[in-house]
């Protein structure tokens, strides 16, 4: 799925393909909440 990796420096070095992620939901407005992903916490 298309999404964004958040809570991560937006560089090729930090955005590692196949790294383990966990979902975070961000409320955009009263009707729309989007799923984003951050590096899995126990892997940090």
């Amino acid at each position, binding site marked *: 799925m298309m*999404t*964004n990796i958040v809570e991560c420096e937006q560089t*090729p070095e930090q955005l590692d393909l196949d790294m383990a992620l966990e979902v975070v939901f961000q409320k955009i407005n009263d009707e729309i909440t989007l799923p984003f992903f951050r590096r899995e916490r126990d892997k940090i």
Partner: protein
Amino acid sequence: MTGVAVVGAAETTELGKVPGMSQIQLHADAALNALQDAGISAKDIDGLATAGSRPTDLAHYLGITPTWVDGTAVGGCSFMLHVRHAVAALVTGQCTTVLITHGESGRSGIGRDGFGRAPASLQGQFEAPFGPMGPPTLFTLPVLRYMKTYGMSHEQLAMVAVVQREWASKNPRASFRDLITVDDVLESKLIAYPFHLLECCLVTDGGGALILTLNNRAKDFPQKPVFILGCGESVETPMISQMEDLTSSRAFRVAGPAAMQQAGVKHSDVDHLMVYDAFAHLPIYGLEDLGFCKPGEAPDFIWEQNTAPGGKLPMNTNGGGLSYMHSGMYGMYALQESVRQMRGTAPAQVSNAEVSVCLGVGGMFGASGCIVFSNATD
């Protein structure tokens, strides 16, 4: 043989920056040049296909009363699909003489419809909210996966642009003709990782048109006919994130082999290849999905100069979308170069070329059309 031949082919009188012409004027300029090339006039046309503008607009503007119309619009390869659909229409007698036009004010933006995506479309709902900025960012997704899977280096990706500039240097109509090195590519501005400026297509104004008729009428036209041996088409998904395999295009894998099978040609029969190159990785996918290289081997194949001037499989011999021109829907220019090569009139002519394969992409690996051409009568 499909039984259909190209008897007229031309691009707009000018390519590049053409701020004095609107999109429909570019269509018309290309159409008039192709009609002149075929020695006929608009009143002789009874089949009309176009993308980017409506066939209705072109029929009105050019004074054509068609009995067959095709407005298939699946992106830059739409013109390959038009060719295939025109073959079906001609052999079943729905019309006798087909005009396919393309005109696009991609750089100057004069009278252009644009690429807007409706918010309710699949891409609008499921990709646009996450911020992709059109093709340069969307096309990074498959190429990064390809690089990881097969270990393709930045230098290998850059070589695609270097080789195509070699071809462009031989073409007086190419937008960029100065030779470049791998270092030049990697030192050009980073647009969207891993793409540098010289790995992205141009944005220019221009157009092109083709005229098709049955083989048995082709001898009545002034130009050497270019026979359509086979055609294929397919679509996959409007969302690049939903590709079945990010390292390969399903639409390429359907359209390419279908065209080559209908044509009855083997890979070793192919003298000339066009693969729509909106970005530097597309020729790599095309070479592999058509079966000229095994998965993961096309970067080495290009690095070893096999597709360069003097190589065993000359590819994108006009300089391609990276160096020749790219109005937005480049497929027409790839078809034009295949026709020139089969006529023997290309600026960088491949000597004794008899079979040309032309593979187009639409959207971001969303669609594909493939045409196999030949100048041989047997």
